[in-house]
C-alpha cells in the first residue's frame, strides 16, 4: 500500500495471506509438470550435446550419457513423488476441512476450492511421474547416439 492510502483500512485486496495461499496452490498444482519439463529439456539437451561432441571429438564416452540420463530420471522421479505426496496431503486435509466446516459458506468455499486444486496437482503428479519414467527409461536399454 502506498502513502496516499494511509487513511484507509487495509482491504481484502492487500492480504499477504491470500498471496501465500495462491503461490502454495500454484506450486502444488504445477510442480509435477514443471519437474517433467525440466527433466525433459535437461536430458534432451544433454543427449543432443554429448552425441555431437562424441561424434566430432570423441571426448566423452557414451556410457556417461546413459548414466547421466538415468540419474537425472531418478532425481526427477523422487522430486515429483515428493510434490505429489504434498499435493495428496493438502487434498485430504482440505477436503476433510471443507466437510467439517459444512454450513459456513466462506470456509466451505476455501476448503472445497483448495481440495480441487490440490487434487488436480496430485493427479498431474502421478501422470508426470509416469511421463518422467517413460522418457528416461529407454536410456537403460538403447544405444544412446
Amino acid at each position, binding site marked *: 500500500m502506498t502513502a496516499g492510502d494511509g487513511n484507509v483500512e487495509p482491504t481484502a485486496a492487500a492480504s499477504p495471506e491470500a498471496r501465500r495461499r*495462491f503461490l502454495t496452490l500454484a506450486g502444488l498444482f504445477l510442480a509435477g509438470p514443471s519437474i517433467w519439463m525440466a527433466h525433459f529439456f535437461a536430458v534432451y539437451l544433454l543427449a543432443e550435446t554429448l552425441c555431437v561432441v562424441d561424434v566430432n571429438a570423441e571426448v566423452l564416452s557414451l556410457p556417461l550419457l546413459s548414466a547421466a540420463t538415468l540419474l537425472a530420471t531418478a532425481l526427477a522421479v523422487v522430486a515429483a513423488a515428493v510434490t505429489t505426496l504434498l499435493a495428496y496431503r493438502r487434498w485430504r486435509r482440505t477436503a476433510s476441512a471443507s466437510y467439517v466446516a459444512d454450513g459456513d459458506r466462506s470456509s466451505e468455499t476455501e476448503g472445497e476450492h483448495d481440495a*480441487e486444486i490440490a487434487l488436480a496437482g496430485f493427479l498431474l503428479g502421478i501422470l508426470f511421474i509416469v511421463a518422467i519414467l517413460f522418457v528416461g527409461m529407454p536410456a537403460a536399454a538403447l544405444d544412446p547416439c
Partner: protein
Amino acid sequence: MSDDEPEEGPGRPGSPRATPSVERPSTDEELASEWADPPGLWGRLRAVQNDAIGQRLLLTGFFFLILGGSLDSVAMRLQLARPESDLLSPQLFNELFTNHGSVTMFLVILPIFEGFAILLLPFLLGTREMPFPRLGAFAYYTFLFGGLLYYSSTLFQLVPDAGWFAYAPLSSNEFSPGLALDFWVLGLGVAEVGAIAAAGEIIIGILKMRAPGMTLSRLPLFAWAMLVTAFMILFAFTPLIVGSLLLELDRGFHTQFFNVEQGGSVLLWQHLFWIFGHPEVYIQFLPAAGIVSMVLPVFVRRKIAGYTWLVGAFVAIGFLSFGLWAHHMFAVGLPPLVLSFFAAASLVIGIPAGVQIFAWLATLWSGKPVWNTAFLFVLGFLVIFVIGGITGIMVAAVPFDLQAHDTYFIVAHLHYVLIGGVGFPIFAGIYYWWPKYTGRLLDERLGKLSFWLLFIGVNVTFFPMHIVGLLGMPRRVYTYPSGLGWEIWNMISTAGVFLIVPGILLFIVNIIYSKRRGAPAGANPWGGDTLEWAVASPPLDHGWSVLPIVHSRHPLWDQPAVSEGDAKLERFVEALAQWPLRWRAALIVRTTDALPEEVFRVAGPSVWPFVTAIGLVTIFAAELLKLRLGALAGALVVVAGAIGWNWPERPPIDEEEELAFEREHGVPVRAGGSDVVAQWGMGLSILFVAIAFASFLLTYFYLRLENDVWPPAGIALPDARLFAVSAALAIAGVVAAYVAVRRIRLGDHRGLRLSLGGMLAFGSAAMALQIISYSRLGFGGTDHAYGSIFFTLGGFCFGVLGVALIMGAMTLVWGFRHALTPRRHVTASNTARFWAAAVTVWVIGFSTLYLGPYLT
C-alpha cells in the same frame, strides 16, 4: 462438490425455463451507452468492445477458411481423383498445398478460437470487458493485415510453394528465389504477433477479471482450456517468430543461419519451426475440448463428470505438447536416445487425451441426450477425434512412423484430428452460442442435414487416405501413376469432398436464414448452466449492470438468483451498477478466492491500435519490397502509435472520490487505470521477452555445437573489455530505476525525475559503448553463422534495451507533467521491472557472445 444431477434449485439442467436471469436496473441504458463503441466508419476503426472484436475475429477466420481451407482442397482433390491427371500443373499444386496448410494453421483456427474467447469470456466469467480492449483490437488488425499481406501474393503471382513448414534450404534464396517465400514469412509473421497479443489479453482476463466468488475451481471449462491455450501460444509462437526472423534475415540480409557451408544448420529451422508446430496442434485442440466440455453437459442435462480430471488433462496436454516436436523429425537422423525421448512423450500424451474422452463418455452415459445439432456435432467430434487420436498413437512409435512418414496415412491422421477434433467443436460452439449473440436460433433441420453431410463426407474423404497411405502413396505429389492400387481410394476421397461442400454451404445458408428469419431465442434457450445465459440475447454492450455473485460451478442450475450472496458483496455489486456512470469501471478479483481486489477503468475506444497495426504491417511490407526506409517509417509509426495508445488520460474522478468508494466498500478504485492489470501485463511482456531470448540462446548453442571451430578460422576472439563497462553501466541504470520508484512513493517528484534521468543516461552510455565495441569487431553479420548470431543476438539485446529507453523517456515526460503520484505510479514501477529484465538480457546475452567463445 457433487457431480450428480441437482435435485433442488431453480434451474433443472437442460430445461429452458426457470433458470435465473439478471436484474435490470434503471441504469442499464446509461451503462450500455458508456460501454458502446462510437458509431460510423471512424467509430468502427476505433472500436474495442469485446463483442465487436470477437465477432470480427470469428468472421475473418471463416473468411480465410472458405478461401484457403475449402477452395484449395476442392481443387487438389479434383486433381488427385484420377491418376496422371493434368488438371493442375505441378507448380500450382505445390502452391495449393502450401497455401492450404499455411492458411488453416495460421489464419483460420487461431483467430476463430481467440474470437470465441474474446467474445464469450466476459459473459462466461461475469465481467464487463477484457482487460486490454485496445490490445484485442490490435490483435484483430494484425491478424487481418497479416492475412491480407500473405494473401496478396496471389495478386502478384508470387504464391509461396515450399510447404506450410517452409523447410530450409528449400526456403532459402538459392532454391526459392523471388519474393514468394517472403510473403509467407512476413505476412504470417504479422499474424503471429496478433496471436501473441490476444493470448496476453486472454490470460489476464481469465486470471484477474471474474465475478466475485468465481474461484479457480468454479471456472467454466472453456475458460480453463483457453487459459492453458493462451500460455501455450506465448511459449510456442515466440520461438516461431524468432525462427521466421532468422529465415528472413537469411533471405533479405544474407546472414548464414541455415547455410551449412557457412556454419549454419538446416535442422535448426526444423527445431524452431516444430517447437511451435507441434504445440500449435494442441493450441487448436484445447479450446475445442473446452467447447465440448461446455456444450455436452447442457444437452445431456447432467453436470460434467470429472471436472478436476479435465482441468488436469488440459494442463497435462499443455506441458506435454512441448516435448513432442521432434516426432515430426524422426526421419532426419537424430540420435536414438533423443528419438526415444520424443516417442515417449508422444505416447504419454495419450493418457490425458484418454482421460478427457472418458470424462465426456461418462457425462454422456449418465445423461439424457437432447438430440439437436450442437449435440450431434459433439458426438461426431467424439467419433472422429478418437480415430485420429489412435492413429496418432501409432505414428508416435518410431518404427511405424518411419514407414508412414510423408505418406497419406499422415494426411488422414491430421485431418481426422483437426476436422474431427477442432472443426466439429467449432460448429457445435456456433450452434450453441449463436442465439446468445443474435437473439435468434439457427434452424435445426438445416443444421442436422448439414451435420450428416459433413460427418459422412469427412469420413468418406479421409478414411481411404489411411489405406492409400499404407499402400505407399506419398504426400504432396501432384499426381501418381496408375496400376498401384491407389485409384479407387483416391476416387472415393474426392467423392467425399462433394458431401463436405454442400454441408458447409447449408451451414452458411442457415446462418443467413437465421439472421433474417430465425426463431427468437430467449435469454437461455438451452437451459444452460453458465453465466452467459443469464443476460439478454443479444446482450447489452457492457454485459453486466449488476455483476453476478457466484457460489457454484453451475450458477444457473444451482443458484436461486444471479447476484445474491454475502450482504457486503451484494452492496458492492449494486453500487457498481449505480456508480460510476461516467466511466467504464470493471472489477479485478484475487486469483485464488475471487474476492474483489480492485475497481479500475478499462481503456476506451481508440484509433491507436489500428495505427500501430498499420505501422507494424508497414515494416513487414517494406521488408518484402526491400524498402528499408519504409521499414524505418513503419517503426516510427509503431512507436508513435504505442505512445498515443498508452498516453495517460486524465482520470475521470480525483483521488478523494476513489478513496470515498474504497472506504465504503473496502475495494480500492483506480480510475486512472489498473495497477494489477498493468503489473500482470508487464509480467507477461517480460515472459515474452524471456522466451524470445531463450530461443536466441538455444540458436547460439545449437550453432556452436554444429561447428568444430568457434569462432571460425580467420575471426579473432572478441574483446570483452568495453562490454564489461557497458554491463556495469546498464546495472547502474536498473538501480536508478528502482530509486525512481522509491522517490515517487515518497512523493518526491524532483527525486523521481533525477533518478529517471540518471537511468536514461546510464542506459544510453551502455548502448554507446556497446556500439563502439561492435564497430571494432572486424567481422560482419554475413560472414559466417558465427557473425550472424553475434549480430542478431546482439541486435535483440539492443532492441530490448531500446524499448526500455523509450519507456523510460515516456515515464520521465509524465514525471514532468506530474502525472505520477504516490498513489498512481504504476508506470514508474513497470518501467523499473522492464529495465531489470532488459538489463538481465543485456548482461547474459553479451556475456554469451563475448565470453562464450573462451569457455567452449
